[in-house]
């Protein structure tokens, strides 16, 4: 009997949730679907949406994030061009139309959640570094990224030093000795050096419901 009442209460709660969404006119598909297909909970999706709205309205208020708004959110200035920010943006932009909709934003950020599977993080980081998207990371690509990073941070290292750092790195990573790092070699490298994936996890995503409170309350208080 008690279980029956609980069931009805839950059903009632779900129905009202449904109605709230209709009234709210969301510009994206049902958060429940996104929650199912990512590691985020429904309330986290809603909090993420608050962040998305903030970023996407910075330059053009059209509910989409363009490259400039992305740079602004990342560097707090739209004057900064970055090889890496471009790469990240392109990977987020799975529809390849130069703008990020909320779905693309949420699905990409899901990979950065502390609870996301490590395989997803390994895959994403591999694609990030595979600048020419050829399915392997070439020595030339690594050099380009190292030089870009050093320039960005105002660090100056001689070409010899850079070459020797890359030599050492490839010695360890390129176990097939073909001058390239393929997916398998990348995977082995990061499993041995987990700190290489540290940028692939954003602890902030765990607290997102408190950092970006959404004004629609969907959490049900469980009666004990």
């Amino acid at each position, binding site marked *: 009997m008690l279980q029956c009442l609980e069931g009805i209460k839950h059903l009632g709660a779900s129905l009202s949730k449904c109605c709230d969404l209709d009234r709210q006119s969301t510009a994206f598909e049902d958060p429940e679907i996104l929650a199912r297909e990512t590691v985020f909970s429904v309330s986290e999706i809603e909090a993420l949406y608050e962040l998305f709205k903030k970023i996407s309205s910075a330059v053009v208020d059209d509910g989409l994030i363009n490259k400039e708004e992305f740079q602004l959110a990342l560097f707090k200035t739209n004057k900064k061009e970055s090889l890496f920010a471009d790469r990240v943006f392109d990977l987020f932009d799975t529809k390849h139309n130069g703008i990020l909709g909320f779905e693309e934003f949420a699905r990409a950020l899901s990979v950065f959640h502390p609870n996301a599977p490590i395989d997803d993080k390994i895959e994403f980081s591999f694609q990030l570094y595979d600048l020419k998207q050829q399915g392997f990371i070439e020595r030339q690509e690594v050099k380009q990224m190292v030089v870009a990073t050093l320039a960005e941070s105002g660090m100056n290292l001689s070409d010899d030093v850079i070459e020797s750092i890359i030599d050492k790195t490839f010695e360890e990573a390129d176990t097939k000795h073909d001058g390239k790092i393929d997916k398998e070699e990348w995977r082995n490298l990061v499993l041995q050096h987990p700190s*290489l994936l*540290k940028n692939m996890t954003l602890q902030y995503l765990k607290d*997102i419901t408190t950092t970006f409170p959404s004004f629609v309350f969907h959490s049900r208080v469980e009666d004990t």
Partner: protein
Amino acid sequence: MKLTWLSAFDIISLSPGFDLSSLFEKDKSHRSDARFTTQKSASTIVSRLEEVASMGSFKVKKKDGTVKMQGSKEGRKGQLAIDAEIFEITPAFHVVQVTKKSGDTAEYSLH
């Protein structure tokens, strides 16, 4: 002191363009970590850190390339603990990553 050697990918991961955490930070000054580069030798860096630590009455412990500093005064959120990890890119080029381990962020920023 034995330091962590950085590979090319470690260097690349230092790039701010790859660090999406700034999407969530409203204010850079509230970051609980900071990174800077220096061309001083490792032993100079350590001595300098020890100097700063003694000025702020911190206890210092050195372990595996990290200088751990623990405040002895009770702050608003307990004792302030700061880690300074030193990475070697070349013997004349180091990256120091400073992270607040516990305590109040405002007190940490002062130091």
